[in-house]
C-alpha cells in the first residue's frame, strides 16, 4: 500500500506551484487596467470637486502668496520655473518656508510660500543659493544687499486691531523689526508706520500679540 504523502509535503508543493511566475493574461490585465484607471480618475475628480485644501495661510480671492526671497515677481513665471524639489525648505534656517499641498493646484502644488505669522524669515538667504532653476535668484547674505534686493512683500497695519491705535502702547512689531527706521517706525505714541524699506520678512507679524494679528505681510502689488 502506497504511503500517503504527508500533508506538509503536499502543502509545500502546492505553495511552490503557486509561487511559480505565471505569464500575465494580457487581455485581463488590459481590462483591469482600464477599470482601475477609470475608477481612479473618477474618484480623483470627485475628490477635486470636494477639495477642501487646508492651509495655515488664509489667502483672499485672487491674492497671491508670499514667496521666498529672490523669487520671480510674476507668479505664473515663478510657478513655471519652480521644479518642486523642496530644497529651499530643506535649507531654510528658521523653517518659515512651507509648501502648498500636492493637491493645491491654485497656487502650484509643492511650491514654497512663507507662513510668517507662524515663523518669520531670518534672512539667511540660503534658499536663494540652493535653488537649482533660478526661480529664486541668489542674494548675498549682507544686510545692505538684502535691504536692496529682497521684496517678498510689505507689512500692512490694521488700525482697527492694532493695540496702539486702540489706545494702549505696544510697539512689539517695531522691536522685532530687523531694519527699524527703514522698514518700520513708530509715530508717537506708538503707532506703527510701514515704510518703503519693508522687505516682508514678517517678524512684525510673528510677534504681534493681538488676535487676529494687527499687522500682516501681503504680497506687493506688481
Amino acid at each position: 500500500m502506497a504511503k500517503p504523502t504527508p500533508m506538509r509535503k503536499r502543502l509545500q508543493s502546492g505553495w511552490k506551484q503557486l509561487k511559480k511566475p505565471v505569464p500575465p493574461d494580457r487581455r485581463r490585465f488590459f481590462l483591469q487596467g482600464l477599470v482601475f484607471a477609470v475608477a481612479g480618475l473618477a474618484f480623483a475628480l470627485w475628490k477635486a470637486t470636494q477639495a477642501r485644501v487646508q492651509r495655515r495661510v488664509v489667502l483672499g480671492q485672487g491674492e497671491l502668496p508670499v514667496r521666498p526671497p529672490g523669487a520671480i515677481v510674476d507668479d505664473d513665471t515663478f510657478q513655471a520655473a519652480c521644479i518642486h524639489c523642496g530644497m529651499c525648505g530643506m535649507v531654510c534656517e528658521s523653517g518659515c518656508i512651507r509648501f502648498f499641498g500636492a493637491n493645491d493646484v491654485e497656487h502650484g502644488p509643492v511650491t514654497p510660500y512663507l507662513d510668517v505669522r507662524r515663523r518669520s524669515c531670518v534672512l539667511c538667504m540660503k534658499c536663494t543659493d540652493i535653488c537649482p532653476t533660478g526661480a529664486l535668484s541668489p542674494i548675498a547674505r549682507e544686510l545692505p544687499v538684502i535691504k536692496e534686493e529682497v521684496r517678498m512683500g510689505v507689512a500692512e497695519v490694521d488700525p482697527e486691531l492694532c493695540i496702539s491705535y486702540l489706545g494702549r502702547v505696544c510697539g512689539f512689531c517695531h522691536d522685532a523689526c530687523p531694519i527699524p527706521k527703514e522698514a518700520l517706525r513708530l509715530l508717537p505714541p506708538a503707532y506703527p508706520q510701514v515704510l518703503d524699506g519693508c522687505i516682508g520678512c514678517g517678524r512684525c507679524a510673528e510677534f504681534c500679540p493681538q488676535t487676529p494679528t494687527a499687522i500682516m505681510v501681503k504680497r506687493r502689488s506688481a
Partner: protein
Amino acid sequence: MSGFVVENGRLHRWLRGLVQVVAVALVVVSPLVGGWQRTDASSLSAWGRDAYDLPLDVANALPPAADGQAVLDHSRVLFGGTGVELFGVSFVDPVVGAASVLRAPGDVGGWASFLLPLLVALLLGRVFCGWLCIFGVVSRFVDGLRSRLPLHPYEVGEQRWMRFVLLAVSTVASAWGLQHIAVHAIAYLALQHSIYGMWLLGGGGALVGWVAGLVVAGLWLGPNVYCATLCPTGAFFALMGRFRLVRVQLKDANACGPTCHSCDLRCWLSLHPSTGDAGADCDNCARCFSACPKDNLHITTGRGERRGRPLPVVMAMLLLVAPSMTWAADGNEPIMRPRLVVDEMRDLHTVAGAPLLVGVGVLDKSQTRMNLYSDLVVGGSEVTVVVGHGERPPKDARGRLQMRQTHQGPLELKVVRRGAALEHIHFDAPTAPKSTQRQTLYRAHVETVVQVGDEVWVMPVDSLFEKPLVFRAHEPRSGRDEAWGWALVGALLWSGLLSFAVATSRPPG
C-alpha cells in the same frame, strides 16, 4: 578586458545592504537632525509655542544642530533626493535635471548636475536603483511581504515601453511648467518629500497617500513592477545603461544546466541573466550570484547586476515609526502658552462693492498656565471678532492710519462642532480692549475648548452680511484626512497603470 572582476558577490551584497541601510536611515533622520531646532526657534514670539513640529520629548532628546544646512549634509548620500551640492557640484535626479535644464537652459550648473548622474549611469547603469533609491528599499520590503502571501508573481517581459512614455510625459510636462507630474511619477521623490513633509512641514498628507497607494498596488500586482515598468528615473538610467561598461555576465554559458534559470527567478527586475546578458536594466545588485548553483556569474567590464535584501528593521522604522510619531505629535504637546487655532481676516466685498472685513481669532487656553512657575491652568478658549467696513480714509498729515468704520452693534457667535452648536455667545457691543476710549473687538472667554475642526460661526448682521460666516479652526499639521482619500486614488490609479504596464510588456525579440 581586464582588471575589474567581482567573482563572489557576497561582499558586494553586504556592501550594498550597508549603503541602503545608511541611505534610508539618513533620509528618515536627516530632516530631524537638521530641523528639530526650528521647533522652538521663536520662543520669544507671542505665539512661539503655537506649532511644535515635533513632540517636545522627541525634540528634547535630539542632539543640537548648527542649522538647516545639516539636513542637506546628512542627505547627501541620496544626492538629496532631487538635488544636492557635493564638493561644490550639484547633483540632481536626471528627470528633474532634464526639467531644470529645460526651464533654465542657460544655467551651466544645471547642465553639470544633469550630466553627472548621466555619466555615472553610462559607466554603471541603473546602480542608483539598487544601491540608493529609498523606494527601491520599500519595494524590496513589500516583495518580502508578498512572497509570504498566496499570490502569483507575474512574469514581466523585457520590453517595457510604458516607462518611456511616462518619462516622456513627465519631461515634456516639465517643459510646460507642470513639474509636479514628474515628482508624483517618481516614487522615491514622492516618498522622500512625504517623509520630509511629515517631519518638517507638518503634513504631506496627499503625498503620503499617493505613495501608500503605490505600495498597496505593488502588494497585489508585484512590488517591483513599478520599478521595472513605470519609473521614469529607472527608464532614464536604463537608456544610459545600454552602453555601460560594468556588467553582470555568465562566466561560461556552456556550464549552465540546460533548463536552469534560478538566476532569472531571483532577479528583482524580472531580467534574464541566464541568457548571458541581463540587459540594460541590470543594477549590479548581484542577487543572481547567490541563486546560481554553479557560481557561474561575475561582474566584469562586460555585463549585468542586482540588488538588496528586504531591510525589515529599517523599513519598520520608515513605515511605522515615522508616521506613528507624526500621529502622536498631534495635539499631545504640552502647551504653556496659548495656542492660536483661528487667526483669520476675511475680506468680503458685499456691501455695494465696499470692503467688509471680518476677522476672527481664537486662542486655545486649555493648557495655558498663569506663569512659568504656576501649575494653575487657565483653561477654555478666548474668541475675538472684529467687523470693519467701508473704505479706509487717507492717512493724516503725520502719516497715521485712519480707522475704518467698525460694527458697534449687537453680534451673535456660535461655536459649532460637527454640526452641533456648543456655545452661543451674545454681545451687545464691542468689549475689548478694556480701558480704552475706542473699543472695536468682541472678545469673550468660553469654557469650551475650541478644537481643530471646530467652527466659529459669525451670525448675520443686519445691513452687512446675510449668511453666517464660518471660520474653521486649523491645525499646524493638516492633511491626515487627505492621506486616506489620496491613498485610494493612488492605489486605483497605480493599479491601473501597473496593469497596463504588465499587459504591454513583451518578451524580447
